[in-house]
């Protein structure tokens, strides 16, 4: 059974089509990455799923049941960490977590345990009595997360939770999400940090202009886009014939030489590096240093969504 099942979701803002027959299926236990440029519809999709936004068409099912704004039983199983740090400035760390946890857990004893766990989970033990104003950016983000997951949800939405956070805090946040997932929480994660998504997510969806452009595992996406490694070779004197030969290889998308460095972008291929080296040897060219970088999710993302600037 899919834990999230979105079918043909259409959402318009006036004449702008924010979601265009958007589909999303997430299985229990997944860490699902939702990627897309700014304004691609990620947050709109999440807000529709959470029933904060009305939509024009489509169905949304959570845990196999139709979601609506009054399905409090379903809401109880969901946790949300919003993009903005949404906490009460006037309440302390503990009070904030207790309040938001209280929206899900009414039993006081159970809630106390949840709040303690959450504080420990995000490492805010020393700050439990502080007000948000006294917290640094990283600590605030951690508080924001604690408020969203203290009630131990089955399904958690993380909307860019690591914006403006230092590497240490980020590492700890990502580790926490992995732990949550290991304990059985299904996670939907959006971010602009590709390496985070690459590290964290089992399955990734890339969307733009309200539509799904690609979906699959990290490896599947790379194969799907046909991107192979990037090879750079220090070469002192490369005959044009050799460059043309390289360019002619099936697996090579481009081969450029600037008089010092040969840059080759490969497609999918099994032996790209050895093929390149074979041709160089054939032309009696002695390579200097050689770098071969495997393709990154960033490459995949730019390949799929294009390099034009977004708003």
């Amino acid at each position, binding site marked *: 059974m899919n834990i999230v099942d979105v079918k043909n979701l259409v959402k318009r*803002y006036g004449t702008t089509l924010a979601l265009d027959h958007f589909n999303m299926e997430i299985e229990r236990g997944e860490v699902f990455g939702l990627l897309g440029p700014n304004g691609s519809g990620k947050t709109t999709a999440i*807000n529709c799923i*959470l*029933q*904060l*936004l*009305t939509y024009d068409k489509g169905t949304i099912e959570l845990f196999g049941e139709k979601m609506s*704004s*009054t399905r*409090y*039983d379903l*809401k*109880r199983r*969901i946790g*949300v960490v*919003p993009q*903005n*740090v*949404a*906490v*009460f*400035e*006037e*309440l302390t760390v503990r*009070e904030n977590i*207790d*309040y*938001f946890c*209280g*929206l*899900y857990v*009414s039993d006081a004893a159970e809630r106390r345990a949840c709040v303690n766990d959450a504080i420990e989970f995000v490492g805010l033990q020393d700050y439990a009595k502080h007000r948000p104003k006294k917290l640094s950016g990283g600590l605030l983000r951690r508080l924001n997360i604690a*408020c*969203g997951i203290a*009630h131990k949800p089955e399904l958690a939405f993380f909307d860019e939770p690591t914006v403006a956070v230092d590497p240490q805090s980020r590492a700890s946040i990502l580790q926490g999400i992995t732990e949550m997932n290991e304990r059985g929480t299904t996670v939907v994660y959006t971010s602009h940090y590709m390496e985070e998504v690459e590290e964290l997510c089992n399955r990734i969806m890339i969307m733009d202009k309200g539509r799904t452009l690609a979906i699959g595992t990290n490896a599947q996406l790379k194969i799907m886009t046909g991107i192979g490694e990037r090879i750079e070779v220090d070469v002192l004197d490369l005959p044009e014939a050799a460059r043309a030969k390289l360019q002619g290889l099936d697996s090579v998308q481009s081969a450029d030489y600037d008089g010092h460095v040969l840059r080759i972008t490969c497609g999918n291929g099994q032996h790209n590096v050895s093929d390149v080296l074979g041709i160089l040897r054939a032309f009696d060219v002695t390579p200097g240093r050689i770098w071969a970088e495997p393709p990154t999710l960033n490459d995949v993302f730019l390949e799929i969504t294009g390099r034009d600037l977004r708003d």
Partner: protein
Amino acid sequence: MWNTFKYTLLWLVRSPDIMVWALLFPLVLTSVFIAMFGPLDDMAQLEPMRVAVVQPDDTTEGQAFEAFVDTMSEGNDRLLDPTFVATADDAADLVRRHAGTDEPYVGYITLDQGEPQAYVIGNVSTSGLENLESSILALMLDEYTARSYLAKELARTDPAALVDPTVSQALFEPMRATVQVHVTDNQPKESTRFYFALLGMAALFGGSMGLTACRRLKANTSALGARRTIGATNYARTVVATLAASWLLSFACLSVAFAYMEIAGGVNFAGREGACLTVVAAASLVATALGCALSAIPRIPEDGKNGILSGVVCFASLFAGLYGQPTMELADTISAAFPAADIINPATQISQAFYSIMYYDTVGPLMGHLGILCTMSILLFLVSASSLRRQRYASI
């Protein structure tokens, strides 16, 4: 629900912005009122009027006039504070010289060929007090004139009667013709109504609490609202708990101000504190509802709604005559011309509810005003209901 109530109360109490309105505002104004009205109540009796008197000549009439002035200038509740001068010109000069100073003369009086005459300063102030003083002076002379007419008539028609002790007593001795009674058991001091006015206005300004509470409830006005909306607690209960907390706090703050008035200010609420607090509670309810209704206005920046609230409260208070004695006249004129304006003005209803506590010995009129206030609250809540009930928006 209790959780939301508790934490709403907590964050409201800890917001300096909110508490300045809810608590500091009534306390500061109460202090100002105490400083102002404390001595005023003691001075409530009319001060003797400063009058220049042209020294009457030595005739019988002159002596009688002087005796009359002397009578009026004696005793604790004397009406006149006379300054005798030689001529009318001197008197006029004296009055003119003191016009506009801290110790002005009402005018001067003189006996001109046996006829008493008053010359009064013609300008009037906003308090209308000068005109009243000169009217009282005129009335005193009228009374003197009438009396001397009677004496002359008697002397002409029945001189024997004048020596009758009963007649001369009737003619010359002052008489207490009336006794002041109160139509209620307890008559509050005049200044009490200013404190009522203050409570009414402070209550309405407390609407900013409802406004802020609503802003943090709605998904389309704050990130906090969005976070609370997706929570698993029934949204209606979240709304009710939040509004109940802001009502309670606004009521509590006003009650503190009320206690401060009574204890520090020595304001006498004539043992009707319970009824007064009921009105305070109803006033807080209307204010909270007003905040909610304003928060429901679409397409206005949230900060701007606070401005609108202030504007609404200022004008509502103005038309209820809450800004001191001068504005009462305006309020009276308007309520005479448009009686309906009283019913839709919460400030008027609040102040009338307070007055009815002090003026009536039945609870009927008070209940009427409380009923209108509650109806008003319900209507305002209804106006905001569709906006408050809403969990999903076309855009946030």
